[in-house]
């Protein structure tokens, strides 16, 4: 039950569907309440977004002070970023680790989600709890344990160790996302395909895979984002050769907040917008497909 709730909560993170029923606060008569709620709510939303948006213009500042008004528009901090070997290496490392982690986590996670769907309810519950536990256990603890395990094998300060550790963090999110898509999948479709003479493999490839593909891709994007964002594992497991973008930023912020960091931050905000856009697009598409398929299945 608790596990289910947590799962539901987490699943929502990936598959939040926007409100459909247009009920509003009119059922509560006080206008003052409505106005207050809106002011408060929008204030909180501004609090969430503004810090990110404020940083973006600063990265184009011609001067080196991180404050408004800007002393002019310039791309010098981006040039700085591009010219710096340590930043470009950090970008390369982050993408490298992120992509390999994504491939591993998506493979393991998708298979596990398909398996869990077919298990009996009791078993499925316990296995999901086990699989999701890396999300619940604080990363710093996992990082310490992994450090102890990897150190004797020389996997600390190696890409292999970092990728394996990131896969631990990322795979559960793939499971959640793919399982959420499978929830909307009508198993009768597979039976229908079978009754039309399709072999189980063909039925899976031609019917199931296209339908769950948006979930798999969303899961992959999640996995990438988890790896790309991780700093705790990286601080324990990455040596100077493996330094990822978050570690580079961490060192930068600790030493001095320079406009170069705001340029890197801006690029990462753009990346976040792209990833978020893809996931939202897939989620909507998946729902459309799911509904269409369900309609087709009812014939």
């Amino acid at each position, binding site marked *: 039950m608790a596990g289910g709730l947590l799962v*539901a*909560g987490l699943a929502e*993170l990936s598959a939040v569907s926007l409100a459909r029923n247009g009920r509003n606060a009119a059922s509560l008569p006080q206008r003052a309440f409505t106005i207050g*709620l809106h002011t*408060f709510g929008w204030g909180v939303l501004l609090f969430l977004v503004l810090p990110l948006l404020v940083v973006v213009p600063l990265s184009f500042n011609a001067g080196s002070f*991180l*404050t408004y008004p800007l002393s002019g528009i310039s791309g010098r901090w981006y040039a700085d970023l591009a010219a710096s070997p340590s930043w470009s290496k950090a970008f390369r490392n982050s993408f490298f680790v992120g992509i390999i982690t994504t491939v591993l986590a998506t493979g393991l996670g998708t298979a*596990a989600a398909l398996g869990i769907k077919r298990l009996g309810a009791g078993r499925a519950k316990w296995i999901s709890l086990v699989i999701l536990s890396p999300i619940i256990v604080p990363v710093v603890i996992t990082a310490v344990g992994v450090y102890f395990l990897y150190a004797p094998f020389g996997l600390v300060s190696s890409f292999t160790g970092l990728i394996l550790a990131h896969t631990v963090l990322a795979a559960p999110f793939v499971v959640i996302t793919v399982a959420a898509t499978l929830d909307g999948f009508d198993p009768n479709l597979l039976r229908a395909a079978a009754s039309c003479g399709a072999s189980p493999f063909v039925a899976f490839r031609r019917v199931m895979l296209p339908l769950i593909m948006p979930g798999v891709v969303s899961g992959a994007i999640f996995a990438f984002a988890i790896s790309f964002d991780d700093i705790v594992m990286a601080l324990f497991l990455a040596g100077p050769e493996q330094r990822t973008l978050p570690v580079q930023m961490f060192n930068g912020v600790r030493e001095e907040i320079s406009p170069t960091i705001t340029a890197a931050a801006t690029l990462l905000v753009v990346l976040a917008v792209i990833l978020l856009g893809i996931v939202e697009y897939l989620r909507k598409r998946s729902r459309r497909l799911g509904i269409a398929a369900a309609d087709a299945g009812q014939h």
Partner: protein
Amino acid sequence: MTAGAVTTARAAPGGPAHRPLDASLGAQLRRADRGRQIRALLLVAPLLLFLFVNFALPLVLMLAKSIDGREEARALARTGAALASWDGRSAVPDAAAKALVADLGDLRGTPALSMVANRLNYDVNGMRSLVLKTARRLPPSGDATLAALGSIDPLWQRPEQWAAVLRATDRITSFHVLAAVDARRDPAGGITMLPPQQGVMREIFLRTFWIASVVTLACIVLGYPVAYLIASATPGWASVMMMAVLLPFWTSLLVRTSAWVVLLQTNGIVNKGLQGLGLTSAPVPLVFNRTGAYIALIHVLLPFMILPIYSIMKSVKPDYVRAAVSLGASPVTAFRRVYLPLTLPGLASGTLLVFVSALGFYITPALIGGAGDQMIGFFIAYYINDTVNWGMAAALGGLLLLSTAVVFLVYTWLAGSSSPAWRS
């Protein structure tokens, strides 16, 4: 999409199950079902195996490390044997001094010497230099007496140092676990707490829980109304608002944290704004202190509160509240008696997520907090990366893991005991 996204039962049995079953068909079905279960388990197995090696094993290893004293015990084997019958108060037998000299003689020139010296220094300040100094000037083992050690450094005449040596000779040691709560074992076998000015760990644990509670509470206060606002908005507005929640959620933690450092610096944007508005004449310290840590932590964790609450609110039919109001309940009563209980599961999972995440946080406070605002995660990293005190890091990690598990169990228990009315 409510609870049980993953845990929903397998697909309903298909057509043949409706027919009356004869024995052989039943057996066939059971076999088919078993085959299906095995295939399903085979699909899950790779991830389970992967997590076993790279997640479960490390956790067990960490817990084991926190009580593992084998290396020190081996290095001080003779001393340990000689001290076995010592009562912890009276003068140390010369045999123990002789054994220590023999052990240190073997350790000299090897990395194990500094390992032992460091381990003793965690226990009693100053033991590191005492041990290294003694190892440099070891008396010939033949005439090694307590007095001879005492002439190297009079500290050897005191039982405290020997008690520390004795504590370091346990193969399975409670030393680190006790140290993680500012306690230690005295030679008589009892457990004593360190005086408050020497111990900091209890304070750090309390601080960690306090910060996590404040952040969670703030997230509830800020998040619940926002979730309601989004759940009750028209689809167009709802998607705009949802973007405002999801964008920070998808943006790198480091970006969010460094954005706050930029904003909150003494001459940063917030302070410039406050001064521009005439709210303050001098800059307000907002960074490298608790205020900054709270602001950044709340910002980072707020989406984890809003999203689960929102998802539950979306599934609550407005009819219930309307019905309550039409039956004469005041809006406040309708909220308290109907809407709040219905949305409680979302609130509970949001609270769990935020609180547990906050407990383990260390990057954000490390960058934006002051020396007195660091949480337990910071010290775990400190003991690994800045000292080689793995035992202490492991013990602190174990305690944090335990805290997380307790929070999770309390949540399960509370969620299990309340009736799942929201499932309606």
